[in-house]
Structures are given as C-alpha cells and as structure tokens.
C-alpha cells in the first residue's frame, strides 16, 4: 500500500519533469529536467521491484544511474561547447587564459 503510494508520487514527479523538459525555455532547463527524470526513474525501478516482488531488478536501476550521467554530460558538451571530441577544460587551462 505504502509502496503503491510511493510509485504514484514518483510518476507524478516524472510528469512534472516532462512538463519542464517540453516547456524549456533554455536548453539547460531541458537538460536539468532530463537528468532529474533519470534519477526519478532509478527510484521508480527500485520501488517497482519491491512492489511486484522481484527486487533482483535493482541491477537495472544501477545501470540507469550510470547511463543517465553520461547522457547529461554529452548534452551539456553539445549545447555549451559544440563538440564531443574536445576535452573539458582543466584548471590549468583556465589559469593559462587568466594569465
């Protein structure tokens, strides 16, 4: 019963994230919504596993948590730097620019 309530709350929160991902307005809002949607997906998978009596599916939740991060980084690099191949700048780079 409590788990079912938890699932319902997470689904509603995912719906709110979809609203933000569609509405924008800036690409960073969309990326934020996508990333947060992914985190809620991880939690939803975990709770569903216990609700339906097969908690072994937590593996899938682990995979989501890892993949979600990579997707967000790729989107961030795309929107901000227009490249996927260049390294993200390290502190030495910015110091060189400062000096």
């Amino acid at each position, binding site marked *: 019963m409590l788990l079912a309530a938890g699932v319902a709350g997470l689904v509603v929160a995912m719906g709110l994230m979809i609203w933000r991902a569609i509405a924008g307005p800036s690409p960073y809002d969309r990326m934020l919504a996508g990333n947060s949607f992914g985190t809620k997906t991880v939690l939803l998978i975990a709770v569903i596993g216990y609700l339906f*009596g*097969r908690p*072994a*599916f937590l593996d899938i939740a682990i995979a989501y948590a890892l993949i979600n991060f990579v997707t967000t980084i790729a989107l961030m690099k795309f929107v901000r730097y227009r490249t996927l191949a260049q390294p993200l700048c390290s502190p030495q780079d910015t110091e060189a620019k400062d000096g």
Partner: protein
Amino acid sequence: MNFVVTHFNYLAVIVLMMTGLYVLFATGNLIKRMIGLALFQTSTALLYISLGKVAGGTAAIKIYPDSPEAQALAAQLDPAYVAQFGVSGVVYSNPLPHVLILTAIVVGVATLAVGLSIAVRIREAYGTIEADEIEAVRAREPGE
C-alpha cells in the same frame, strides 16, 4: 468501451507508431526523420512486449517454486489460474517477444548510426540535409 479497456495497450502503441510515422513523413530534415524512425521502431517494440504480457505473470527468470518470492507471487493469484497457466507453480510472461526485441534494439541503434552517417555524407556532398533542397541541387547538376 470494453474494447478500449482490454486493448488499451495496443491502441496507445498504435498512436505512438503513427506519431513516429508522421514525424518521418512531415519533416524534410534528415536528422528529424531519423528521430521519427527511431520513435517508430521503439513503438513497434512496445507492441511486441504488450503481446507477450501474461496477466499476473512475472519476468521470465526462473525462481524456485518453494522460495518466499514465489509463494508471495502465487498468493496474489487464483490457485486454479496458477495451476493452468503457471510453470511449476509460478506464472511467467512470454519470453519469446523479449528475445526478439532485445536484439532488435541493439541492431536498431547500429542501423540508426548507419542512417545518420549517410545523412552526414549527404550534408558534405550537397551542403544541406533538407530533402527538398537536396532535390533542387540534384536538379541543377544533372550529371550526377
């Protein structure tokens, strides 16, 4: 109305498939077309998985019939139903659509990549990825 309830999954999947098909046809942008194709493909996968679902079933990974997990799952269902449709006391969903779709998804991303790389080469050859502009360029250069 009863039809809508019993076939809700199929109807929703048809809406998704048609959305993908619409994106595929309505836009001239090749990248957007590939997105539409991916949408269509994912929706087809959803249709297969819907067909393989068995009411009250669980994932097709065997659990021991006398384990607490299996007992809890069987307790949710009518014993006659479990006896008729279960396999040694547990009702499983159909694994065959899962196998077909699992490989189809990985092959799908590989073919998506091939399609996108063709789009990239088209951009390099014609300077655009809008389908009608490509036609215009081809009309101007009849030698090709």
